[in-house]
């Protein structure tokens, strides 16, 4: 080892430590940002270390790649609106995974002959995980952006087809493991993995995206870790594993918040089945006028806002904050109740409300806010449906039975802001809407909220 190599290894060690410190900083909003500066520093050190320590002879491709990547990356970082955060995150999972897969292909091109058995195994994992995460994330991003139809796409015999694809992929992997010289098998494996990624995400509905996003996050990380095994590079293993486990923990949390198993999310095709008369919903929905709703809010003591994905689609985060401020000005206590799977990715609602300058101290998690609903005068549900469906608690036959919910039905009165009378995304009837304490305010969430704010001013 020469000096340059030692320098490179030292930067890798520093980077690994800084990455861990960065994630530790994430445990509190006050320290999170400083933590990320550490991670950025670590990344920069690792890049410089690599450029110094490896025998780089061709700079053209590197400079071109860094330049193009930085321009696109910076453009994304600056211009993507907060409402489009799920799509952007999915897209960037695709980019990270594609890089891992391509590095794998490159390694195969150059070193296929002299790889050990273990390295070949790791290479197989890297390429498979990288490729399926790439296409899977692209499909997820397409669904979230609305380019691809968001409902689950299912057909007869789908699981058999998927199983066949999976077995073919594993078959190629094993064959390549034993016969590294079989180029066509390696490339078939790559192709099948791309296809498998598509097949894996296509049957999953948009409402289940929080779990899928977390899983893809995990796969992208594990692909990077496998790259580390192939290249014998510890910083890749550490960073990839941290990412992999972060994604895994998030997906477990999301599954818990829906009371479903990961297999059920991946293969259940939730939302395709319209629940047939298992709901005890019935009766009439009571509509409320803007002025009456404003009156109720203005004379309440405690108001809880319950945002859902509808808040994001209507881009109503600023409107809700304005209304909340007016109410606070009248002495009303305002809180926000955030369900773990509200929105399309973990923490989606928190980010939107933070963008609208809602202080994070008024955002409450499900466990904290649920005991407070009985003493809440008005709960305002904004574009949320399944996460406030009392059937999950009361009706064991419901397909969402057992999912923990925000118990808004225990509040003294409930105002539901909803686009129309139709069912929510999952196609389930929601008995909450038929309760006597519930009143419906139809219309676009953003305009409803700003009209409410005007009306509150005139009360």
């Amino acid at each position, binding site marked *: 080892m020469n000096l340059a190599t030692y320098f490179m290894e030292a930067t890798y060690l520093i980077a690994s430590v800084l990455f861990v410190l960065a994630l*530790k900083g*994430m*445990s509190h909003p006050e320290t999170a940002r400083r933590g990320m500066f550490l991670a950025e520093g670590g990344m920069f050190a690792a890049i410089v270390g690599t450029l110094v320590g490896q025998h*780089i002879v061709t700079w053209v491709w590197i400079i071109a790649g860094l330049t193009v990547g930085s321009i696109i*990356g910076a453009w994304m970082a600056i211009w993507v609106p907060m409402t489009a955060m799920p799509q952007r995150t999915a897209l*960037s999972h695709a980019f990270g995974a594609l890089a891992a897969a391509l*590095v794998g292909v490159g390694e195969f091109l150059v070193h296929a002959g002299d790889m050990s058995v273990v390295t070949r195994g790791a290479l197989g994992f890297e390429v498979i995980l990288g490729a399926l995460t790439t296409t899977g994330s692209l499909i997820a991003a397409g669904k979230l952006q609305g380019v691809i139809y968001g409902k689950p796409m299912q057909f007869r015999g789908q699981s058999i087809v998927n199983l066949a694809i999976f077995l073919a992929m594993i078959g190629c992997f094993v064959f390549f493991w034993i016969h590294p010289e079989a180029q066509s098998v390696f490339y078939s494996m790559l192709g099948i993995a791309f296809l498998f990624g598509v097949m894996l995400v296509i049957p999953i509905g948009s409402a289940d995206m929080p779990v899928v996003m977390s899983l893809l996050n995990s796969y992208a990380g594990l692909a990077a870790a496998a790259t580390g095994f192939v290249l014998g590079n510890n910083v890749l293993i550490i960073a990839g594993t941290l990412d992999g*486990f972060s994604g895994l923990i998030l997906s477990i949390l999301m599954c818990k918040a829906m009371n479903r198993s990961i297999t059920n999310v991946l293969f259940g095709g939730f939302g395709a089945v319209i629940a047939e008369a298992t709901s005890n919903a019935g009766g009439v929905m009571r509509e409320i006028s803007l002025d009456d709703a404003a009156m109720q809010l203005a004379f309440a003591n405690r108001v809880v806002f319950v945002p859902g994905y509808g808040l994001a689609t209507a881009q109503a985060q600023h409107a809700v904050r304005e209304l909340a401020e007016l109410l606070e000005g009248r002495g009303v206590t305002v809180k926000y109740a955030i369900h773990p799977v509200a929105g399309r990715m973990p*923490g989606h609602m928190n980010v939107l409300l933070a963008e609208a300058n809602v202080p994070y101290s008024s955002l409450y998690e499900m466990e904290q806010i649920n005991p407070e609903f009985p003493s809440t005068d008005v709960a305002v549900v904004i574009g949320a449906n399944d996460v406030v469906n009392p059937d999950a608690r009361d009706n064991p036959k419901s397909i969402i039975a057992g999912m923990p919910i925000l118990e808004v039905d225990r509040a003294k009165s409930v105002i539901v802001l909803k686009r129309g009378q139709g069912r929510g995304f999952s196609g389930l009837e929601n008995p909450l809407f038929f309760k006597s304490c519930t009143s419906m305010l139809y219309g676009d969430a953003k305009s409803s909220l700003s009209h409410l704010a005007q009306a509150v001013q005139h009360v």
Partner: protein
Amino acid sequence: MNPAVLIASVYVFALAAFLGYQVISRVPPLLHTPLMSATNAISGISLIGSLVLAGAKGYPLFAHILGFVAVTTATINVVGGFGITDRMLKMFGKRKSETKAAAQ
């Protein structure tokens, strides 16, 4: 990869997994979106593998081209990921008093 290196790598993997579990289970749900985009940016570390592919000695031209694409996508991930994470965390960093002041 010889057995000693492999075993060392497996140790690194296992310890990193354990550490990751400990550290990440403390992240509040409030910060789950920034967490995801931050870990995603960090896993853009595959950039350093891409750099080698794009420019190191003894690689054929086709590998350099694959490396170029990999460097590009990994850089998008790193720059975009850190950039957007910072943008999000800036929003969370605002204290209540500042928010009130800004609103008036």
